[in-house]
């Protein structure tokens, strides 16, 4: 069932165009890499605040409200460009370890974010003004940082298989 979907995806006209063109893949890949660097760089700012490493003088909630819209915009670009790259050789990518691992790590990053929002984020207006972040927020920030470094590493690995 899923294999049929992958074969169908590879045969769609954008996918065929990308795999047949000599410049479409590198071009989309550049957009993908740019978007990911912006996702990771901006999320790192928030994670380091949660870890109490820097920006301690900034209210955490205010920093997140300011930075995260840019993160989400970049993530949308990364997801769309990534989907296009994937479609050009869907069956091959799906069969590789780093691709599957990257998707898994992305899901974990999403779950970590949901967990943070369900717990320490609720009282961010209180602790976010002070220089000390609660332990749960530090753990969320640390896990997020580790997972996003994992996403970049696995993404780079996909290019080597």
């Amino acid at each position, binding site marked *: 069932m899923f294999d049929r979907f992958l074969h169908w995806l590879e045969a769609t006209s954008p996918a065929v165009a990308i795999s047949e063109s000599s410049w479409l893949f*590198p071009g989309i*890949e*550049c957009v993908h*890499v*740019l978007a*990911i*660097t*912006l996702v*990771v*760089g*901006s999320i*790192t*700012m928030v994670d380091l605040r949660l870890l109490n490493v820097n*920006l301690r003088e900034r209210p955490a909630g205010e920093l997140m409200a*300011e*930075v995260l819209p*840019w993160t989400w915009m970049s993530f949308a670009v990364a997801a769309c460009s990534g989907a296009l790259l994937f479609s050009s050789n869907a069956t091959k990518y799906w069969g590789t370890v780093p691709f599957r691992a990257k998707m898994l790590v992305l899901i974990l990053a999403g779950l970590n974010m949901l967990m943070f929002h369900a717990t320490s984020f609720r009282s961010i207006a209180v602790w976010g003004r002070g220089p000390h972040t609660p332990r749960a927020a530090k753990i969320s920030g640390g896990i997020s940082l580790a997972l996003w*470094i994992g996403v*970049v*590493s696995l993404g*780079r*690995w996909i290019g*080597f298989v």
Partner: protein
Amino acid sequence: LQDFINWLGDTPASLTIQKVFWIIPTVQIVHILAISVVLASMAMFDLRLLGVAGKRHSIVSLSHRFMPWLWGALIVLAATGSILIIGEPNRALGNVAFLSKMGLLAVAIIVTLIFQRILKRDLENGSSDLAAPHLALAKITGVISLALWLGIAVAGRLIAYAG
């Protein structure tokens, strides 16, 4: 140049990097992570110069916040980039994309240094932030800087494709 590339490729350091399969991917990952720091920092700073984002922060406060990250990350990039060149001299040196990247990088650094100097002068002259007559210049700097850093990252990725 080809002689230099051949010589570099035969040095013990290069041979080690070529032999140990995980060095290049690992160093590339650190390189990409450092680029994330540069691009995100400079995007935030340049968008502020353009007046698009972060307007409640002064230019000087964001400069103090992001410049140390820029210079720190550039040191990491120079170190990891050097390892990649030593390991694969034929891939980078003489490569059009690599040379373009170095050219754009030089211009980006010069633009940044000039802007920082103008900002510093304004502060020394008693202004609390970038002086009002320099705000148009800030916008131009923001556009140029943003284009340069994005171009540097794109050129870097294209090293893998260009000859």
